[in-house]
């Protein structure tokens, strides 16, 4: 029995190491390219450790484009969107999963249905509408576009479905109203779900390209992804700078992921969801 366990542990690690190599490959490549001259990036065979590391690339990205401003803008948009998304989605999801009301199915279907429509289909009407509100060239436009996604509601609803109704009935009998149940029971219990949504919203907003491209045309408003694109100018692609900037830009997302990870681990004991 013990021997079997040992073998299976070894197997698991073997698989995980294989996965790690596949997953890490691009990052290592990014890192190594970020320290090269453009002309050396696409040479074969791949030179993993650059002969003369170009540390200047990491200096240049700050001066070639206003990267600091872009990061500030992106951080601002991302934080607000993530906050609004978490709050409004978890709020709405509570009603969709634990309350009975008129029009529930129709409303929910409306949400789901819009997930199925590709954004490219309604980008132009949406843009014209936003502009008529005077929101062209404002961060508010991007925030409003991103913050009320149907996806967030749908996902939180799925997580709430997993929380047994009996808990809520019990709380009602104890005299709690729905707002209290939401705040005191649902929120703490759905930490894994909330963390997941945080990560997704954060990554999506952080990496969003098409929205800022259409709405933010003034330099002081632009975001990081537009900045990355700036390095791919029409006539020459400055990949080393793109890679250096990509590495810098990746860091905040990883920090968010790492800091939220403990909520996945926390699991059963802390949330108290049992059977």
């Amino acid at each position: 029995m013990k021997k079997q366990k040992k073998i299976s542990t070894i197997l698991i690690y073997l698989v995980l190491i294989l996965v790690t190599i596949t997953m890490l490959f691009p990052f290592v490549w990014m890192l190594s390219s970020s320290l090269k001259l453009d002309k050396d990036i696409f040479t074969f065979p791949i030179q993993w450790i650059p002969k003369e590391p170009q540390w200047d690339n990491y200096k240049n990205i700050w001066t070639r484009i206003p990267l600091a401003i872009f990061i500030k803008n992106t951080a601002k948009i991302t934080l607000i969107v993530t906050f609004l998304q978490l709050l409004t989605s978890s709020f709405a999801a509570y009603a969709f999963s634990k309350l009975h009301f008129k029009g529930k199915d129709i409303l929910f279907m409306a949400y789901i249905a819009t997930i199925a429509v590709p954004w490219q289909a309604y980008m132009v009407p949406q843009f014209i509408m936003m502009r008529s509100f005077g929101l062209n060239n404002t961060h508010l436009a991007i925030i409003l576009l991103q913050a009320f996604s149907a996806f967030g509601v749908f996902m939180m609803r799925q997580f709430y479905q997993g929380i047994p109704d009996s808990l809520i009935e019990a709380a009602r009998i104890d005299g709690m109203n729905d707002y209290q149940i939401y705040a005191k029971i649902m929120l703490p219990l759905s930490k894994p779900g909330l963390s997941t949504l945080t990560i997704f919203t954060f990554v999506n907003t952080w990496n969003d390209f098409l929205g800022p491209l259409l709405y933010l045309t003034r330099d002081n408003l632009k975001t990081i992804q537009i900045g990355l694109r700036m390095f791919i100018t029409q006539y020459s692609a400055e990949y080393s700078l793109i890679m250096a900037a990509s590495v810098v830009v990746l860091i905040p997302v990883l920090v968010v992921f790492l800091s939220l990870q403990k909520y996945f681990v926390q699991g059963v004991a802390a949330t108290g969801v049992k059977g």
Partner: protein
Amino acid sequence: MKKFKKSFVLTLFAVVLGIVVLAGCGNSGSSSSSSSESGSSSSGKTKITWALWDIDSSTYYKPLIKAFEKENPNIDVEMLDLGSTDYMTVLGTQLSGGDNNIDVASIKDMPGYASLVSKNQLEPLSKLAKNVDLDSYGGLVYQIKVNKEFYALPFRNDIYVMYYNKDLFDAAGVDYPKNGITWDEYNTLVQEVSKKATKAKGSQVYGGHYHTWRSQVQLYGILNGKNTLVSDDYSFLQPYYETVLAQQKAGYVQDYSALKTSSLSYSAAFYQNNVATMVMGSWFIPTLETAMSSGQSEKFNWGIATMPVPKGVDDGTTAGTITSLAINANSKKKKAAYKFVEFVTGKKGASIIAKTGTMPAIQTTDVIESIASTDGFPSDAASKEALSVKKTYLELPYSKNVAEVDTILNDAHDNIMSGNASIKDELKNASDQVKALK
């Protein structure tokens, strides 16, 4: 308990509202200050907005604006960088629905121009520009005419020339390419220099280089002036594809699919010092000069010759792409906007643009002189001579369906070059698709 409920909900809403309002104020403040609609500010100045791309890498924007504002102290020009990769998409969106934030717009390509014209978003210029000598643009304006009217004036005309690596030719012991060589002579040259230089250097040298753009092959088909790329019979392109594919198969040039998947830019390819010749636009001149001095490129001597032409085509014929300026039909400051357009596309603008090493649309001997005297330009007389052209053909002429045609041609090029279809079938297929367009 009730109290809790109320206060909780209230706080929640307050937070949401607060954030939305704060975010809104923060932004509308900054945006209204930068895009003041009122046209004239307190000092009586008119501010016009110019939509363009790549402020930082294009050296001529700022000198142009500076010179213009000096001449017209009551007009301010503001630049609006829409980025280069999706420029026409963003410009189209910004102008949609009759918006007037942008007054002057750079026009990057023909499909984009055609769509803006059909959407009535560009101001017709024939009346405003009746004093402009259209012949000074070497016939370019006639190629962008739409039913006798035109909606833009060119300020840049990048012609195609052949860049060559002198060191590789020296190593191979082959004479430098001459101005005015034909397509067949070029084919022989590519093979010869490829074989000899590879042998001499002991490593792979490519005689030529075709970037992944379809124009790299298709342009040769239109230089005789008989065909254009908006056509319902593309069989005239067949010989050029046959030659290029044969070169590729023999390894004289790099493989199309490899170039495409590795996203190798043509400049990076040329910098590697293993490409002997490359036909490319004159926009590459300042880029190459800078790359040589900054160390982005391997060090080698280079020169310029004319673009190879099919047999029977006059010397001094080449292909070109223009960048032009247009006025937003909904602009509230058309007069000031036109003044600016006239300045940039005129002789004064041309000389300012030329000083930065970029080819302006008006190409006089002074202009050529000025480009040839930029730092790092090859010192031989032939290279300078290669810049004087007599006839330029635009890649795509104006046509109503030019955007659709562009897509069809791109597909065909991709299929042929990656070996997924025979040349004959694919060109026939493209012809049929264009025929089917209404």
